[in-house]
């Protein structure tokens, strides 16, 4: 009796372990947050980029308009890659692009915009990175498409041709 149960148990345990690891193989090990439900945009207080005036988030995000909130920085290389797509999007009439200047020096950021043109309708700065966390952001670059004070799309990393088309489709 003993000799029969033992190999049997061993096979069951090994097959359970095999199934667990096999399923684990198929999961992506890069964590992506669930974007199932649409989240409200956070309420925060920040400084504007040019004049360093303090403003409230309610003042810039109006209800029935599309906004693209883009987190950028002059020291971030992928931000340069996505810049041409932002310039392309800035020609869209029903979309306003809001920039969040993340942990940047004002001089460097101004030079960056002078060099590559400014696609933003409004820029505010986040010197210690805490506002980016309010948004649930991971780093730079990151973009949020907003409508009626809700985040309807989140793009982690630079905007590319595909996400550009997707944004254009969403704001139609």
């Amino acid at each position, binding site marked *: 009796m003993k000799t029969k149960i033992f190999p049997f148990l061993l096979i069951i345990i090994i097959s359970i372990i095999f199934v667990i690891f096999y399923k684990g193989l198929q999961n992506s090990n890069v964590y992506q*947050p669930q974007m199932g439900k649409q989240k409200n945009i956070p309420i925060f207080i920040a400084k504007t980029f040019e004049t360093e005036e303090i403003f409230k988030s309610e003042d810039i995000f109006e209800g029935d308009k599309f906004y693209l909130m883009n987190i950028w920085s002059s020291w971030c290389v992928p931000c340069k890659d996505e810049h041409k797509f932002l310039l392309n999007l800035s020609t869209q009439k029903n979309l306003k692009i809001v920039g969040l200047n*993340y942990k940047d020096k004002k001089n460097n950021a101004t030079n960056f915009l002078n060099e590559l043109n400014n696609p933003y309708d409004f820029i505010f700065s986040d010197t*210690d*990175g805490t506002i980016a966390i309010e948004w649930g952001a991971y780093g730079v670059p990151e973009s949020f498409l907003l409508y009626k004070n809700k985040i309807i799309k989140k793009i982690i990393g630079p905007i590319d041709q595909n996400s550009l088309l997707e944004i254009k489709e969403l704001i139609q």
Partner: protein
Amino acid sequence: MRFLKFFILILIILNFNLVHAKTKNLDEKITKNLRCLICQGQSVYDSDSEFAISLKTLVKKKLNEGSSEEEIYNYLKDKYGEWILYDPGFSKNTYFLWLLPLLMFLIGGAIILKLFIFKKN
């Protein structure tokens, strides 16, 4: 006796430095329990990435504003999901994780019982 005095002296000296890994402040305790999401396998406390530095600032800011530990965890869970916590709560996604050790213990116990106790009878 002399040796004992010497030993106590060393103990006292060692207690003065703060090198030992005891958690000193609440913000350190909190950031040690937060996963740095962009540098996998590290806690926010251990990491020096921009994301982790911002999170450390935020935790300090929240504590100064009077938030409790629990409130900070809930706040970050709302922003980033449960993954950011190293100590996951009991939910339908994590029940296996919590019950597996118990299950292993029971199976192991059953094997031991079978091998050593019922064998004698």
